């Protein structure tokens, strides 16, 4: 049994974000992190590994420096890492990305008892699309928004969160699950893991390595193979600052209440 976890290196959007004058993101000036939801996916895999002895493989599409992130994930207890990297893959939208990652998963080998885990969504695009689209390209069932997972034989029982409650869903392997932060608390790297992370297997899959998969076609990968294009990007204007009230005492509060009443807001 094998568990494949898809992860993404993303700019840290919680800090200062730099935007170029043409409305694109100045990625070079920003720190990168492992996408937070993806760490919940890694943890879900490691929990199942402890229960079943499964092999855990982490896979990411990105530029060569993403190796650092993958080594850190190995140090959390993952067995090996695969980086999918190539100029041909650049500019891919979610559709094209899912074609490439599905081909990489085919190359790693998805067998009858295997599971693919993804994070719910990445904080740079917030699309939540790549997980379900990989599942479609692999022709396996998916369960998204997983908050609890239990496994018995070939059957996973998943608590799938909805806005107004949840569904309990049973699904057989092979399948793909997208994980939310309520699922678990990701573990840290272990000291032993850090020592070993550069000795564990690490592989790069480029265009040459994947090109025989029918999913890899110049018309369905990269910028040219992406069904969606950016028409315009721009920064939103700041709403104009309003009125700072003098003081923070009873008079201030009465004045505010008076203004709200005058505007018929209360």
């Amino acid at each position, binding site marked *: 049994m094998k568990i494949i976890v898809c992860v993404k290196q993303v700019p840290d959007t919680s800090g200062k974000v730099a935007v170029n004058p043409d409305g694109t993101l100045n990625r070079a000036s920003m720190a990168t992190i492992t996408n937070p939801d993806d760490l919940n996916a890694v943890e879900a895999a490691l929990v199942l590994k402890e229960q079943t002895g499964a092999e855990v493989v982490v896979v990411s599409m990105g530029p060569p420096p993403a190796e650092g992130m993958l080594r850190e994930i190995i140090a959390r207890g993952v067995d090996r890492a695969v980086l999918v990297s190539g100029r041909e893959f650049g500019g891919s939208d979610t559709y094209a990305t899912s074609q490439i990652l599905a081909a990489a998963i085919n190359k790693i080998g998805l067998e009858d008892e295997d599971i693919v885990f993804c994070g719910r969504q990445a904080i740079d695009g917030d*699309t939540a699309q790549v997980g379900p689209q990989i599942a479609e390209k692999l022709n396996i069932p998916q369960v998204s928004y997983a908050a609890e997972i239990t496994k018995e034989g070939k059957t996973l029982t998943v608590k799938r969160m909805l806005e107004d409650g*949840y*569904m309990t869903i049973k699904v057989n392997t092979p399948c793909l699950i997208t994980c939310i932060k309520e699922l678990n608390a990701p573990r840290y790297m272990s000291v032993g893991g850090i020592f070993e992370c550069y000795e564990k297997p690490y592989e790069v899959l480029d265009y040459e390595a994947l090109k025989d998969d029918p999913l890899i076609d110049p018309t369905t990968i990269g910028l040219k193979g992406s069904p969606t294009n950016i028409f315009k990007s*721009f*920064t939103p204007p700041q709403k104009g600052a309003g009125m700072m009230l003098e003081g923070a005492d009873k008079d*201030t509060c009465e004045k505010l209440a008076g203004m709200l009443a005058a505007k018929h807001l209360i």
Partner: protein
Amino acid sequence: MSTFNSADIASFKGGVWVFCEQRQGHMMPTSFELISEGRKLADELGEKLYGILLGHNIEGIAKELGGYGADGVYVCDHPLLENYTTDGYTKVICEVVEEYKPEVMLIGATNIGRDLGPRCAARLHTGLCADCTHLDIDVPKYKEFLRESSTLAPNLIDSIPEEDRNLKMTRPAFGGHLMATIICPRFRPAMATVRPGVMKKAAFDQAKADACEIIKPNFSLSESDMETQVVEVVKAAKKLVDLIGADVVVSVGRGISKDVDGGIKLAEELAEVLGGVVGASRAVVDSGWMTADHQVGQTGKTVHPRIYVALGISGAIQHKAGMQDSECIIAVNKNDTAPIFEVADYGICGDLFKVVPMLIESIKAAKAAK
């Protein structure tokens, strides 16, 4: 079935479609919002607007969609569609789309819509834009939107070619720091999931509801198509807070950390006086102080109430993305340089634990005096 080729754009004459999500036989509010928005897009394209409704014994709730602007509703009724499943819903929707070839397909960006949309788009080989907050067809209207809602230089806006007829799908990215307008020029249908609560619901028209056409398309579905099995559907025992529909939202941030329970209690009291509900910043939800249904912001909910009160919220861009269109924003924060004051109509620099009790009394007094 007609042959399906998503790149044969000229053959997609089936109009604008909205996936109308229902749960347990009740239409989700976002279905009415998207029908209302879809009506505008269909008019811009000079096409018809249809809902597509899946479920079991749901025909009775279809015609109401006409009252918000649908010309017709494709009703797909089957026992296996009673509860949402990715497999069942994707198969049926894709079969009906391949038969009737809509040009545009909108789906509410609920947890179900964001599961369904990408799966359908991948099967149909077309583009999908996630969690959109603004949609246009006509370029002059889009330019008007950019003039109001972007910092783009006027010459960059004026130079956009007016003849573009693609669906222009605008959404926040990078936590709300950037907005991107996405098009799907080479494939159809152009698909978008649309954030609930953003599009305005039109006024209901009973005559239009009565005139709404019900269409029952052919599709095939059997047990063998179902790879996931819904064991149970559980509604949250505690009533979840309705942030999106609220008239007033009083949100708390990290500023309540010195007395979390006390801070939440003050927010609840203020919300009660104002007739609203309590929201929270991401920091508060991530710390486990309040549940995720309270979260306002890019990763939470987008709200535009009449009054939004931010208590002890610094105003990270990802929070502002979810509340800055509120009619009146009041911020209380100890730090006078907090970014929340940049979007606040009224700011008070002070300790929320001292200010809020006084504010509650003042508002009570002002209301009593009316």
